């Protein structure tokens, strides 16, 4: 039985390879080294394991609208820092830093667009802007794009990516949940279709308002979607969370989303749905 006691050589962690960071990306899912250009062509989905890399707001706009058709609205909206909030850093500074990072704007981009030639109203959240948190500006922009959908009878598409309500605007942030939901109540009454697209991560006040109020909910594979964050839950119940908890597939299993959709199929899925739900929709 000597073979049994033979010291095993520990498996070596794959050696760190220094890669030119502007040409290659390492997949966070399977570790495969990917050509950036190929990855971009594949809508930032790993061709080996289907891991979905984070997509920017601009990239979603490209996927969900006809080239050159997007007409941004409300870009001039800025937070007024109504509480003059300061923690370790003034909120005003955090805002300025976030604006520099994403090149102006806020945690959501909204506007008119065409999709396969059909008019739509589109809103895409940007997680890079203070964690995609919802303060007064995000609430106002979502409400305005909702009103646009209502007044121009355009189907509404909202892509969520958010850590939740923005603490630095206090109860105003909480009330944006009510504000966006109240707008969706009007859309609902007018039977204007609304598709909610949930991406990684969507938590807190955004999930508990407009993201969960779609006529149809589409979620990207593997996205974290929930109300309470997993760490908060773990601290509360003092036990480890089950594998895959609060991921898209888990939500699908529990009946909270209609479909888990690969990003490469997102556009055609949206068009197929709107062909049924939007009265004037013409398929190309």
């Amino acid at each position, binding site marked *: 039985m000597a073979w049994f006691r033979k010291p095993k050589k520990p498996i070596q962690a794959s050696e760190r390879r220094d890669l030119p960071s502007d040409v290659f990306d390492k997949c966070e899912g399977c570790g495969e080294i990917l050509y950036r250009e190929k990855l971009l062509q594949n809508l930032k989905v790993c061709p080996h394991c289907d891991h979905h890399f984070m997509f920017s707001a601009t990239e979603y706009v490209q996927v969900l609208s006809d080239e050159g058709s997007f007409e941004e*609205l*409300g870009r*001039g*909206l*800025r*937070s*007024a820092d*109504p*509480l003059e*909030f*300061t*923690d*370790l850093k003034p909120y005003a500074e955090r805002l300025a830093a976030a604006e520099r990072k994403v090149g102006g704007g806020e945690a959501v981009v909204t506007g008119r667009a065409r999709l396969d030639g059909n008019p739509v109203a589109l809103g895409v959240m940007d997680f890079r802007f203070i964690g995609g948190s919802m*303060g*007064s*500006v995000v*609430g*106002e922009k979502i409400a305005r794009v909702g009103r646009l959908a209502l007044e121009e009878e355009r189907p509404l598409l909202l892509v969520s990516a958010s850590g939740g*309500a*923005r*603490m*630095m*605007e*206090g*109860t*105003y*942030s*909480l*009330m*944006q*949940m*009510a*504000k966006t*939901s*109240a*707008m*969706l*109540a*009007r859309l609902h009454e007018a039977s204007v279709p609304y598709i909610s697209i949930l991406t990684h991560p969507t938590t807190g*006040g955004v*999930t*508990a*308002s407009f*993201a*969960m*109020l779609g006529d149809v909910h589409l979620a990207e594979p593997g996205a974290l979607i*929930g*109300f*309470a964050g997993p760490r*908060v*839950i773990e601290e*509360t*119940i003092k036990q480890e*969370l*089950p594998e895959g*908890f*609060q991921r898209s597939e888990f939500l699908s299993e*529990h*009946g*909270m989303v209609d479909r888990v959709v690969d990003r490469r199929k997102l556009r055609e899925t949206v068009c197929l749905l709107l062909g049924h739900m939007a009265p004037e929709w013409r398929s190309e």
Partner: protein
Amino acid sequence: MAAPPHLEFERDMVELQEEIDKLLEMAEKKEIDVSRELAELRRRLGAMREDTYRNLSPIEQVQVARHPRRPYTLDYIQRIATDWIELHGDRAYRDDAAIVGGWARIGGHSVMLIGHQKGRDMKENLRRNFGMPHPEGYRKALRLMRLAEKFGRPVITLIDTPGAYPGIGAEERGQAEAIAMNLREMARLRTPLISVVIGEGGSGGALALGVTDQILMLEHAIYSVISPEGCAAILWRSAEHRDKAAHALKLTSDDLHALEVADEIVPEPPGGAHSDWDAAGEHLRSALLQNLESLEALSPEALLDARWRKFERIGAWKEDEGDE
């Protein structure tokens, strides 16, 4: 009577109360007249109470809002309503005891009264989950609101919760969806809606009962997007800074009235609602009656229109010129 649990800033008042009690006891034993001393001590206590409660810091307000002797939803219902009959269950999964609701009569008005319910002791708190609802609680609330709408009755909600419950079952059963659905459906209910934050207005779990025509706050209630402890833990990296977070979050009734989130502040008796439940109930009842009168005069269309405009306005932003 055992001394009630008291807060740090209440210590002087408790000591003064003990002095009064001792004096009374002595007077009784020795049969002497202490009415003059007694009156003086009581006057001092009253003044001290009023002064303390007028100058509470934000974190002290938070403590008062969470005071273990503060009246809860069922305590108020007992004091402000008659013909109360509680209704149970969401018709889908179970009855969540963290939210109670049912028919009640206030003055001449038959209303649907719904509120978060905290427990008074450990056993009751386990049953009521410290007033932290699960999805079925919000769904029960919505079912009852729709019942009210069906029979043209107003809805009154009493808000008092640390927040939604961060647990596995709550997520599995879709608490985000349940809260969101309440927000949307409350925005389109064709009947008058009034909410009153009676203690803790904790985030989404509170707002799920809060999309109403009128938002009232009791004087020492708080309403916040996150608990000061949670906010401090994230932004100050330590829950110990909760006093700073409480200050920064602008969560008191005065702050929220100034920010035009709270429409009205309901006064509490000197020393807070916990020092005199009956008086607190009387203030609440008269505020509700006034609001019921004015809202019941409006048509459903006018109500909805005003409600939409109210929530459409909430928030503060700047807009650069030249942009749409």
